[in-house]
């Protein structure tokens, strides 16, 4: 076999750091399998910033189209739990972004004259959000009750608290919101800075509400039909949220094109950044949900996810 150890060109410390950063964006299973080999290749070839950039770009397909052989030892339950935890957070962020948009447009009663498509987008978004909330509640409730019962039976107060986060965090946030609006709000609502503070606090509350069950999933490690049902429901939620995402994208672009005088839509920077966040959250939700659904439908005894 040809050894070919290379020129022995040692990469600089900064180049090594760049390569490590590029490898860090790969899925953990990919890194575990190929990370050392890639590092050895770049040590032999003297890889620099260009090599690191090429490596980082290739991480995207590694996430979206993972190679099955990297998961053939993974228990489908592990895959389902990981996907559920990710979908919970990503979907809550996506819903939050959508609600911010709704608050700034739909709830202001704004509809550009002569452009019914934006009104349709509002309706599609509302319906998708309501349906996904129902699907999440219906599909997730059996698993949630199962875990809550187990945490109570086994006297695990931390896990019980994590599982109650979806109830506690929004309740605390809404209470704080009511107090804030009454204290600093006027006839026209709150000032832009207070709106920003309230929005950021809302995202933090949503994150905590979603992270709690995710932590409980990792600690309690549920299995069985309740987990499978919740994972399939997450897949359905992700699919419906893609429709909501499309509605948001069309509405924002429409407002930029047809209503530049409204709010900040004359400057495409903020809507542009907003759309990037929306699409990124939707992509993470969809990819993770798809991988979880694939594990949920895997044949018994088959360890492919």
């Amino acid at each position: 076999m040809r050894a070919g150890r290379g020129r022995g060109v040692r990469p600089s410390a900064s180049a090594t750091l760049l390569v490590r950063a590029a490898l860090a964006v790969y899925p953990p299973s990919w890194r575990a399998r190929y990370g050392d080999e890639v590092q050895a290749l770049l040590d032999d070839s003297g890889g620099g910033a260009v090599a690191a950039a090429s490596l980082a770009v290739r991480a995207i397909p590694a996430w979206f189209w993972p190679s099955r052989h990297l998961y053939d030892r993974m228990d489908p339950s592990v895959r389902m739990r990981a996907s559920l935890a990710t979908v919970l957070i990503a979907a809550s962020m996506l819903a939050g972004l959508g609600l911010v948009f709704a608050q700034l447009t739909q709830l202001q009663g704004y509809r550009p004259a002569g452009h019914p498509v934006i009104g349709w987008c509002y309706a599609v978004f509302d319906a998708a959000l309501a349906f996904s909330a129902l699907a999440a509640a219906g599909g997730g409730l059996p698993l949630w009750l199962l875990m809550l019962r187990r945490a109570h039976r086994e006297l695990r107060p931390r896990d019980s608290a994590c599982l109650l986060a979806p109830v506690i965090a929004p309740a605390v946030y809404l209470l704080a919101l009511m107090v804030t609006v009454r204290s600093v709000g006027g006839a026209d609502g709150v000032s832009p800075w207070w709106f920003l503070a309230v929005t950021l606090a809302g995202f933090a509350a949503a994150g905590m509400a979603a992270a709690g069950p995710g932590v409980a999933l990792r600690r309690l490690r549920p299995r069985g039909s309740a987990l499978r049902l919740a994972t399939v429901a997450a897949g359905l939620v992700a699919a419906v949220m893609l429709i909501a995402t499309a509605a948001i994208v069309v509405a924002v672009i429409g407002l930029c094109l047809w209503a530049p005088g409204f709010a900040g839509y004359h400057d495409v920077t903020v809507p542009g950044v907003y759309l990037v966040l929306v699409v990124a959250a939707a992509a993470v939700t969809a990819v993770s949900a798809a991988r979880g659904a694939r594990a949920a439908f895997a044949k018994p005894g088959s360890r492919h996810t």
Partner: protein
Amino acid sequence: MRDKLNGWADPPLLVLASLAGEPKHGYAITQDVAETMGVRLSAGTLYAVIARLEARGLIEPLESDDRRRPYRITAAGAQALAQQSERMSRVASLASHRLSANPGWAGA
């Protein structure tokens, strides 16, 4: 990865052709491909290809004491490579025959 190994410079094809001679690790593959076929494969491209060829069962890793893990082509990989080689050979032969038969392409 596409089902067919299309294109003479398709990275999966180049990697399979490189391994058809003898097992090699990543750096040796890139060197061989650059020297014999004139194509530079980046680390990202190479390991994306290796991951997919391994998932398809066309190559397999060998044991190694250090980080430089060698790969070898499997029977399925050799068969896929042979099929693609034959396809490319037919295309090359047809093209050559038609170009030489057409006086308008005498300079081609």
